[in-house]
């Protein structure tokens, strides 16, 4: 039996080599299908992981409160009054279950150090920003209490700002110029890498809130409130309480819409990864149709092959081949055909993934299980679509088959 299988395998390879062009065209559907499935799933996994990394880099259970209505088209923040530092203190004192309430005043600036300048965003905030935003200090220190209170000119810089301004040089203690004042670098943040939307999270500069308000924006506005919750907190309930408290404080009548919005960043990231999953699934389904078409192509060519080789089948049957041995021979041929298509598809997919992940600057996540699954699936297609032609071959009448021209 094993020698029959082995010889059928060798014969299948020989037949494929003899009809190389035809075999290639036959398996093209499988190649494209497998390549598409593997590429989609691999890239989808990479994207999903990027998003989940983003979720964890945001810190768990983080709420953002901004003035203006919710994000998206028709967003109206112009007329909405900004928050004050007092809003943050009110929320902290009035609502239980909040870990940190951090006011943030943002401002776009150009910073200069030596001959280098760099455009970035300054966030005026407190030390609470670090745990809430899941930031760590790589070297140096956080703000001191009196620096925060007095609004001293000190800053903590992100990895990108450091690279652009100082290269690999240690920036601690150096001064950078922000607008008209000089500001001492006291700390350096640990790099986080790229965010979910492709933005650079490390392109950031932190200063005490009072410093930004007094020296940069010139007002007491706070552009957003960052609220981190304890693990296991009832996020929707807390969001509702924040909303009613802020409506009250901003003196909104019952028929007026919110002039602020509360956003659960984790939820946004989850929605995003859900969207990626849906897209991956959809494209996977399209690829599955391609595999089906590929399978039909295999069946077609196997039927042709059985007809072409009727005489050969007759000879085999006459000299004593059993039905299942002939069946096995053609089944093996179909499987060798479809599985080699699957292999080519996997190789193409890996090349495509390596190329695309470089272009899309996304992490390339090799997942052996999807590759194995795709290969097994392509072999299974050979079995499923090769069975009918193989059975036709096995059931030939040897006398008729020998007479076949």
């Amino acid at each position, binding site marked *: 039996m094993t020698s029959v299988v082995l010889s059928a395998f060798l014969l299948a390879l020989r037949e494929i080599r003899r009809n190389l062009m035809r075999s290639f065209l036959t398996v093209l559907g499988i190649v494209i299908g497998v390549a598409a499935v593997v590429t989609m799933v691999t890239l989808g996994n990479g994207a999903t992981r990027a998003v989940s990394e983003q979720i964890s880099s945001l810190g768990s259970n983080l709420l953002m409160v901004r003035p203006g209505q919710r994000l998206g088209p028709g967003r109206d923040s112009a007329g909405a009054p900004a928050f004050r530092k007092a809003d943050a203190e009110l929320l902290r004192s009035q609502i239980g279950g909040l870990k940190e309430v951090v006011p943030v005043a943002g401002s776009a600036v150009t910073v200069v150090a030596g001959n280098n300048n760099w455009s970035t965003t300054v966030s005026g905030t407190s030390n609470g920003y670090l745990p809430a935003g899941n930031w760590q200090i790589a070297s140096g220190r956080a703000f001191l209490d009196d620096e925060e209170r007095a609004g001293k000119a000190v800053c903590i810089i992100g990895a990108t700002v450091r690279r652009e301004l100082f290269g690999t040089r240690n920036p601690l203690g150096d001064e950078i110029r922000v607008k008209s004042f000089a500001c001492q670098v006291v700390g350096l943040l640990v790099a986080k890498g790229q965010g979910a939307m492709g933005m650079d999270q490390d392109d950031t500069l932190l200063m005490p809130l009072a410093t930004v308000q007094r020296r940069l924006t010139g007002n007491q506005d706070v552009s957003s409130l960052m609220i981190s919750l304890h693990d296991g907190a009832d996020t929707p309930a807390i969001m509702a309480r924040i909303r009613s408290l802020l409506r009250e404080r901003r003196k909104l009548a019952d028929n007026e819409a919110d002039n602020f919005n509360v956003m659960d960043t984790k939820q946004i990231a989850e929605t995003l990864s859900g969207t990626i999953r849906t897209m991956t699934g959809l494209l996977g389904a399209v690829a599955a149709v391609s595999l089906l078409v590929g399978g039909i192509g295999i069946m077609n060519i196997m039927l042709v092959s059985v007809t072409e080789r009727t*005489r050969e089948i007759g000879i085999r049957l*006459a*000299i*004593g081949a*059993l039905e299942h041995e002939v069946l096995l021979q053609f089944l093996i041929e179909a499987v060798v055909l479809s599985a080699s298509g699957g292999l080519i598809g996997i190789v193409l997919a890996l090349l495509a993934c390596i190329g695309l992940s470089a272009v899309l600057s996304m992490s390339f996540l090799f997942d052996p299980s999807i590759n194995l699954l795709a290969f097994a699936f392509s072999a299974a297609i050979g079995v499923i679509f090769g069975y009918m032609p193989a059975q036709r071959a096995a059931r030939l009448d040897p006398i008729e088959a*020998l007479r076949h021209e």
Partner: protein
Amino acid sequence: MSAADDVPLIRLAGITKTYGEGEVAYQALCGIDLEVNAGEFVAIMGPSGSGKSTAMNILGCLDTPSSGEYLFRGIHVERLGRNQRALLRRHSLGFVFQGFNLLARTSAQENVELPLLYRGEVAPERHAAARRALARVGLNGWETHTPAELSGGQQQRVAIARAIVTQPDVLLADEPTGNLDSKRSHEIMKLLVELNRDQGITILMVTHEPDMADYARRIITFVDGAVASDERRNGKNGASR
């Protein structure tokens, strides 16, 4: 083969074969009774449509009779299923066809090995047996050639080597010289006679050429689906019986 002493190798009793049904039914064989003993060299003759090929297919266990009994070494072949008949062919019969029926693009060696492959013999034994069989038919040195590279006579020798490589009890030859010129035909016939004489292989051969039938020791003539004559005589070149 001690059984051959009391039971004939092949016994046909009242074999009929009918193709089609009702109005269009055509009776190819109408009641054949025949015994063949081990070691015989039998030529089956007869005009086209006399039923000799049908009889050959039944004798070769490729086809089943419509009625009657076919005993091969005491086994009721007409009661065997498709796969059981395949096993009988595999182990006891060898075939030589008019059109050679070798696998194209496959070396002589591999063609001869094919029956051994289905018997499940291991590669070294297959190779050795195939080389021996090819040597027996005078094709040393031609092992790697494909049928397209061989003459008709050589192709038929490969086919004979394939038929005898399993050391069958019976060799069935359906017009083995039908596609060959006279000189090659006689060479093939001499080879068959030698196999019959030296190895005791029973040979059943269909032919329409009296020249070729002369090599056999027994000539059975079919006419209209029945045995018209069955004569025994001295075959050319000393066939065994």
